[in-house]
């Protein structure tokens, strides 16, 4: 077999001497590259978080911008959360009741246990996971499309920090509205669960509506989660949007990443806050 013939005239790039040449890569190089990209991404996220806090304290908002975002994040999520949290409440009480009945014949503490679980963990975490999909995707898609159409560059040309202009109003609105929505979603889940307990297990409302197990620790942990999740979702999603590259494909990738990373952030924060909460307020 004849050896391949070299081209008579080398291409321009080859003449330049600094052209890209395919380099052999191994597992170590790939792992190293992955690590570098991971560190770079984390630095980017940290930078967005820092700038968000800085501009939240120092920046000046245009009239109505935060309210507009509060409407987008809060009011427009009400239907979605009502449906999902209602069903989740029903399913959880139904499954818990079935399991509990195998061990103890008495279901009088079903409502009290469910309420404690909701306040301490489930209301905040489940509602925030839902918000991460609806709100997170929306934020990343909106900011990402502004990046790929150079609108973010145009903002920077006018002396505007895109984090101040695009992320901070969503952050402020989210911190407030996520708390409100979690309270609302928790109530929906609790009452839907109560209806299930009454219909399936014959647990009377006056028995179900029992807050005896609830203490200051549960409320503190629940509130901490409300604030943490409300802050994390717009920061992570904003960072994903600002990292969008290319065209519509880049926006799609940023949107997917926003949902994945926001959900991941909620889970990680849940673990951290629950761990700290367990130490501070043991059950």
């Amino acid at each position, binding site marked *: 077999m004849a050896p391949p013939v070299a081209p008579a005239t080398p291409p321009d790039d080859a003449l*330049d001497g600094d052209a890209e040449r395919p380099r052999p890569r191994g597992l170590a190089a790939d792992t190293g590259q992955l690590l570098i990209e991971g560190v770079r991404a984390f630095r980017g996220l940290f930078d967005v978080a820092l700038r968000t806090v800085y501009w939240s304290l120092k920046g000046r908002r245009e009239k109505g911008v935060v309210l507009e975002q509060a409407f987008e994040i809060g009011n427009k999520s009400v239907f979605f959360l009502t449906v999902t949290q209602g069903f989740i409440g029903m399913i959880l009480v139904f499954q818990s009741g079935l399991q509990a009945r195998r061990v103890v014949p008495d279901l009088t503490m079903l409502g009290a246990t469910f309420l404690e679980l909701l306040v301490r963990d489930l209301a905040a975490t489940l509602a925030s996971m839902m918000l991460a999909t609806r709100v997170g995707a929306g934020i990343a898609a909106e900011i990402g499309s502004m990046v790929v*159409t150079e609108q973010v560059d*145009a*903002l*920077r*040309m*006018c*002396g505007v920090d895109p984090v101040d202009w695009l992320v901070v109003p969503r952050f402020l609105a989210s911190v407030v509205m996520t708390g409100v929505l979690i309270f609302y979603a928790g109530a929906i889940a609790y009452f839907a669960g109560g209806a299930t307990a009454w219909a399936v297990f014959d647990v009377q409302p006056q028995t179900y509506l029992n807050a005896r197990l609830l203490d200051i620790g549960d409320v503190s942990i629940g509130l901490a989660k409300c604030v943490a999740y409300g802050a994390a979702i717009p920061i992570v999603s904003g960072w994903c949007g600002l990292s969008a590259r290319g065209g519509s494909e880049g926006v799609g990738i940023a949107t997917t990443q926003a949902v994945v990373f926001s959900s991941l952030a909620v889970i990680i924060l849940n673990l951290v806050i629950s761990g700290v909460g367990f130490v501070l307020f043991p059950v």
Partner: protein
Amino acid sequence: MPPRRVIELRGITKRFVDGPPVLRGVDLTVPRGCLYGLVGPGAAGKSVLLKLVVGLLRPDAGALLIEGEDITGLDELRLHRVRARIGMLFQNNALFDHMTVGENIAFPLRRAGVTDAAALAERVADRLRMVSLPGFEDRMPAGLSGGQKKRIGVARATALKADIVLYDEPAAGLDPVTSQKIFDTLRAEQREAGATVVMVSSDIERLLTITDRVGMLHRGRLIFDGTTAEALASRDPRVDQFVHGKTDGPL
């Protein structure tokens, strides 16, 4: 006395992740009050070069000087101060979707501290007349044609009357008459204000009627830098082919 060299690039190299270098050691100087035409085939690095000049992108190597000040390593906050002296038209116009045309044009002025509503309205109306779109203040960008968006972009880029203005394809998508009008208007404004302008355009024929100097980028290298007359008379086959729009040649 202000420095004569307004924009200066020294050995600028830029590459994006996993790609070949977009710019390779580019040295370029734009003197004060000059209308500099930057030309070259597609993907030659022209738009990247404009973004480097205003710090929207950072070079991998080399130095960038604006009016003698090295801006290569400046942080975003200090770059804001530099950008306040520069107007820019983006290739994709970059009009803010959620703002009306009037708000788009007024935005750089408001950010520069102009708060008087009457002055803002007057300036917006003046810019809209300049691009032959009077009365478009309340329209939304989504309802405009490509050419109209481009003209609104030009109006916004010139709203500040900046000392330095960068235009990335100011006539793309415009009909020949409007295109010529825009070129003539921008030239007249540049002369009147004494601004330093860098203009990237694929409409070579019209561009060369208004430029003082021309630079040609090819595969990330500045292969020509000289007066418009020198460009038209260049013996470099690549420059000759490009500026005269010949189909036969090395490009």
